[in-house]
């Protein structure tokens, strides 16, 4: 029997799911095919999770079927119909909820979340977990019928936390069927993939994300600037393809260095040579910005007039610059408290539908940890290990493109610019 599945265009799993069981003489009586047909006729989809067919005609058969519908109401309607034909919902128990006994930590045996869409059963109803994020606990408000992923640190004394696995289920991410980047590449990392196809697919995904009204997130490392890609990224921001930017002090510093001095780490970006006293340029840039009170102030003062950070300020991109132990300066906008930075990033990913991670291992992993599995992630790096690491740390939906970032960003900007030049979207 074929398994039928459907996904929304962005690969996000559809609405509500309930498991039913059909047992008895369901094969020769055509009850099983009838039930499956009715699910489809009523606009649902199904997945046969188990089917055991009796050997003799007098032997009963049984099937366990996942039924999916767009909304809980639609699912209830389907289930009410199926019950008439002998299907019974597989009853499971409510999740066990325990109030946090201390602040800042979960109760022992807490349910540890994944980045996949999860549901919690409370009062006999399956509730979608909000703010899906891996490596969190599950906090619930039974009265309001809400559940959400809670970072350990944010646990308050008495917060109701789900304990154990009962009454919690993960709705698996379904692989999109369309022949997109995510369809044909899977998450295999290789330098030997047709780059033009990958590039077009990334551009298509970005267009689709924007068309849906979702945000595109860029997570970038300073190599973007070192390789001379700042103008390409600036163009992408200027043309409205990027709404959110996560980076460290370095990307911003070298981007500003280029804008103010034409160098990145003292290397001239126009002729590729080390400029005399060029090693001082990035510190002088930080100093200039700090004297003005910050990047935004520098743009407002007309001192910073080009580059990624300048465009980000002008286009009101949601920027989170997270600091690290080796930062020079840092720039005033850099958040040096790691927990505070993580929290800002968590808030900033809310409407992100597509994440492009370029030439940064740590920021990519940090962001990957926060993203739900249904957000598409493309990781571009010259080093295959970066991509592998990201996927291995749980961001399994990552599609890796092993390439030099400059030609990639140049082509991407050109591809999307061609699109922007096309007649206005209607």
């Amino acid at each position, binding site marked *: 029997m074929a398994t039928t599945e459907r996904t929304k265009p962005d690969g996000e799993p559809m609405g509500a799911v309930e498991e039913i069981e059909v*047992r*008895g*003489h369901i094969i*020769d*009586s*055509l*009850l099983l*095919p*009838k039930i499956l047909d009715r699910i489809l006729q009523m606009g649902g989809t199904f997945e046969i999770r188990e089917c055991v067919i009796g050997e003799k*005609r*007098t032997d*009963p058969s049984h099937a366990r079927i996942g039924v999916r519908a767009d909304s809980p109401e639609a699912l209830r309607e389907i289930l009410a119909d199926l019950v*008439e*034909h*002998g299907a*019974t919902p597989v009853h499971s128990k409510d999740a066990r909820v325990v109030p946090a006994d201390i602040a800042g930590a979960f109760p022992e045996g807490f349910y540890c979340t994944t980045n996949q869409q999860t549901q919690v059963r409370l009062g006999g109803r399956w509730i979608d977990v909000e703010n899906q994020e891996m490596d969190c606990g599950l906090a619930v408000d039974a009265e309001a019928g809400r559940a959400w992923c809670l970072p350990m640190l944010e646990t308050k004394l008495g917060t109701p936390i789900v304990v154990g696995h009962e009454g919690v289920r993960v709705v698996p991410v379904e692989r999109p069927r369309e022949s997109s980047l995510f369809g044909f590449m899977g998450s295999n990392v290789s330098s030997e993939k047709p780059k033009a196809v990958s590039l077009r697919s990334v551009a298509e995904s970005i267009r689709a994300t924007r068309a849906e009204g979702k945000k595109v997130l860029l997570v970038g490392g300073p190599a973007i600037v070192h390789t001379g890609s700042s103008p390409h990224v600036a163009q992408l921001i200027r043309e409205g393809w990027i709404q959110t930017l996560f980076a460290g002090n370095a990307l911003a510093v070298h981007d500003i260095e280029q804008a103010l001095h034409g160098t990145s780490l003292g290397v001239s970006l126009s002729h590729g040579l080390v400029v005399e006293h060029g090693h001082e340029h990035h510190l002088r840039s930080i100093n200039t910005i700090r004297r003005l009170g910050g990047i935004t102030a520098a743009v407002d003062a007309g001192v910073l007039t080009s580059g990624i950070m300048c465009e980000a300020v002008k286009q009101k991109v949601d920027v989170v610059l997270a600091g690290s132990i080796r930062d020079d300066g840092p720039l005033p906008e850099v958040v040096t408290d790691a927990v505070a930075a993580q929290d800002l990033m968590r808030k900033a990913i809310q409407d992100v539908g597509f994440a492009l991670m370029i030439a940064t291992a740590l920021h990519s992993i940090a962001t990957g940890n926060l993203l739900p599995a249904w957000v598409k992630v493309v990781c571009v790096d010259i080093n295959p290990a970066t991509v592998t690491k990201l996927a291995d740390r749980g961001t399994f939906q990552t599609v890796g493109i092993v390439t030099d970032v400059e030609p990639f960003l140049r082509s991407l900007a050109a591809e999307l610019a061609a699109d922007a030049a096309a007649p206005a979207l209607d």
Partner: protein
Amino acid sequence: MSALNGVSSKPRVLMCPADYFGIEYEINPWMNVQKGSDPDRAAAQWRALYDALGDLGAEVDLIEPVEGLPDLVFTANAGLVYRDLFIPSRFRYRVRGGESPVFERWAEGAGFRILSLPEERRFEGAGDALFCGDVLFAGYRFRSDVQSHQWIGEQLGVEVLPMELVDPRFYHLDTCFCPLAPGAAIYYPGAFDDYGRSVIQSRIPRLVEVRAEEAADFSCNAVVVGRTVILNQGAPRLAGELRRMGFATRPLEFSEFIKSGGSAKCLTLRIDGEEAAAWKTAVPAAVEAAH
């Protein structure tokens, strides 16, 4: 083995005199309390059936009619007979609920072992479950629920094929399907959906399709005794088909009972098993193995 079997090889039928029969409520599209039945005519029609059965060599057991239970006359809905087992009905409508204890007492008295369905199930006996060969064909939706059929299949160790009834006029399986012998039956296709029709067509090699107008005259609600079929008299085409298949026919008038949504078959319960039930002639040891 109870006294039920082996004592007599005569066909045995359960009936209930129509003394208190009437249309006192409406639980199917045929019933209309404004158009009541005529007690005298009903009694005469019932008597004609009783006589015909006797004529065909059947022994008729009678159950005492009860005032306030007008449908007790439809003994087909008492329950399901399988060898020495009796599964009492659990009526969908409360107005018929009072019949269950009466039928159950009768079954116990007749020497049946009683097998009770779970409390929440709905099942209306031979009205919705008929053996044809080894298979129990079953109808669900209006009166019986499919879970009851599956439960019975499991308990008896028989193959059950539940089919959805889709036309409220044919609310019981015995209003649109009648096994004649193992591998032979009459049915009205319009009472089933594609799935049900496929099941019947694929499992019963000798089938007679009853036309809509004759089906609406309750001609599928027939009683088979040996090679004779007692049916409502308003079905000349079906009678012709049956004769061509080698069955004799006994057309009788059931107009008063049709007002209540029943005809010949509804007025009878075959105590020793229907003619078409293969288990009648099979080795009884099989039933022991099933328990």
